[in-house]
């Protein structure tokens, strides 16, 4: 089960993580819906791109620009959070969406927890695989912690001050400048 488009849904993608004795070149990618590491995609692109369903995941120290010009090949791109306190994934997501034009499923994987998901959804994630030891229905609540935000991000192209009429005060006294 994952969270996608703000609902708990079943999921049939498998995430491939290399074990120590496997290399991107030699690892056998099973048939079916597999989200492969970026390095495996780059090493085996010639065969993998002929598959019907393609997924790739980025580690937090990998650059989204590595996928420049081919993001549209993927049904899903995932970004791994090795620890929830590693915030690089937020900028990776932003760049995938805003700079590389990716519009498909963008999934947060790894140490994904309820209390970070509101921010994750703001920078462009629309799918979340919460850590398996956590209750996924509980995690879903994290997407609705706030109903307003001040600043622009992927989900909100206009800052609050351009979106709404904010109250000011009628000024009394002289100005300060």
């Amino acid at each position, binding site marked *: 089960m994952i969270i996608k488009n703000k609902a708990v849904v079943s999921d049939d993608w498998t995430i491939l993580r290399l074990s120590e004795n496997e290399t991107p070149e030699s690892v056998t990618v099973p048939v079916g819906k597999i989200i492969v590491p970026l390095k495996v995609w780059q090493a085996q692109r010639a065969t993998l791109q002929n598959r019907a369903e393609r997924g790739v995941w980025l580690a937090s120290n990998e650059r989204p620009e590595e996928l420049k010009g081919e993001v549209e090949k993927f049904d899903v791109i995932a970004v791994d959070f090795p620890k929830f306190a590693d*915030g690089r994934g*937020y900028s990776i997501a932003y760049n995938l969406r805003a700079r590389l034009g990716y519009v498909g499923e963008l999934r947060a994987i790894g140490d994904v927890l309820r209390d970070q998901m509101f921010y994750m959804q703001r920078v462009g994630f629309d799918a979340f695989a919460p850590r398996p030891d956590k209750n996924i229905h509980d995690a879903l609540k994290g997407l609705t912690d706030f*109903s307003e935000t001040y600043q622009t991000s992927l989900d909100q192209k206009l800052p*609050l001050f351009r979106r709404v009429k904010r109250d*000011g*005060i009628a000024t009394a*006294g002289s100005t300060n400048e």
Partner: protein
Amino acid sequence: MYKYDVYDHQIVDERVAQYRDQVRRRLSDELTEDEFRPLRLQNGLYMQIHAYMLRIAVPYGLVSSAQMRMFAHIARKYDRGYGHFTTRQNLQFNWIKLEETPDILADLATVEMHGIQTSGNCIRNITSDEYAGVAADEIIDPRPYAEILRQWSTFHPEFAYLPRKFKIAINGAAEDRAAIAVHDIGLSVLKNEQGEIGFRVLVGGGTARTPIIGSEICDFLPWQHMLTYIESIMRVYNQYGRRDNMYKSRIKILVKAIGIEEFKRQVEADWADIKNGPGTLTVEELNRVAAYFTAPVYETLPANDPGVALYKTENKAFANWLQRNVKPHKIPGYAVVVLSLKKTGIAPGDASAEQMDVVADLADRFSFGELRVTHKQNLVLADVKQSDLISLWKEAAEHGMASPNIGLLTDIICCPGADFCTLAFARSIPLAKMIAERFDNLDFQHDIGEIELNMSGCVNACGHNHVGHIGVIGVDKKDGGEWYQVSVGGAQGNDAAIGKIIGPSFNFQQMPEVIDRLLHVYVRERLEEELFIETVNRIGVTPFKEYVYATPINVEDTVDKDAYGFIEKPDNYTVQRKSRF
């Protein structure tokens, strides 16, 4: 000052609800302590040696009388009747129970306050000039920009889990009173030759383990671009700042590693597609926010009040206070008053609930209901009629807030140190107290004149030791003892400089004598009217170093006098150090 609209209220209220649920989940063990730690830190809650500490944001140091009364209420209801004003213009309570923190934050929300992002690896409280709006040397009032930055940085989704904490300071006057050179980003508001408003942007300044003055990344950034340009700085840092070693993770290390030119190139490359985008500030928004910072309705008054002029000839204590604690105001007949929280015997920056109520009353009666917290841990009444100075002085003195020591030796900047903080190697509050007692003689202090003595209990340098004229820092000597390194020649402001370490460290008991010897060299060497820092700059560090180390410093055994009221110090005192935070 700024007032919340319906959106500000909603966002802060939703934060309280979110946090209340997080605490509930922690207490029921749905959240582990490791998972909860960054959540509580981003609400200002630290675990200290004795209890939780709650840090409340005082945006750019501005606080209303109603807010100050709420601090007093919290001090009484949830703490031990006092609070501590910090070097980042915030307020800390040191004896807090986790279970009560949601209620404290709910109470704070009723007066438009919170603990959001006062800790954690995120953008922290924006700091500014404590004399903003009233300083005679002001070019542009920085507060509207600080408030706009506060809102922009609040819950910024992309920058909540940065490599390390991130501090922004903004100054708008000829003199830098916001220490912009030692911040992750330092902004100076200025006007260019065409009269347009913009910022000089410094990046990568800081203190702590790697004290360094910030580098200029932009000499004039038009104000409209403030938010998008900072967004790009943050994005480059978030992606490339080091995360493998917390001591190398601040932006200054990144800027130093790749050089300011390369850093600037990366920032401008990132900025290219958001520059002029929807994140660009509008005149309407700037005007909306700036309208909250217009000056109060001043009376037309004579430039100098005759009553004050007469009284100061009759009363030396008042004259001393006038000289040290009262600053010029740009409006004739008004004055800026600094209420000293540096009374000898009290921890620098501490205020009791009673004092908080008193200053709230003083603010209502004498200064349009507003106060400021200074980064030197004092309070300011910014708009006082000169004709009120005598009554104000008497009342402040009655409540222990009129020590005439602003800018003098006993106006010590000091972090909480090892009495409270799990990071500290050594105590700083008892040391400050011991030094203050040694040099309590006011005539001596006035003779020494302006000097900044800044002390930190550890390398994190919360007490701004690197930029103190004399800096003292607790160092880790592995033996569990308390050792202090001393630097001279640091400075804040326009001529910001990092002090130079004079040599091997000293123990707790030796420190007052070390300070005394440094002052001795100054008194011996100074030219007429020369300040301590000017003498240091002229003659260099060597004469100070030579004299301090010339003969051994033997201290008579005053060790076991309990240095600070509520901390019991065992005979074989060793500093308690727990895990971080």
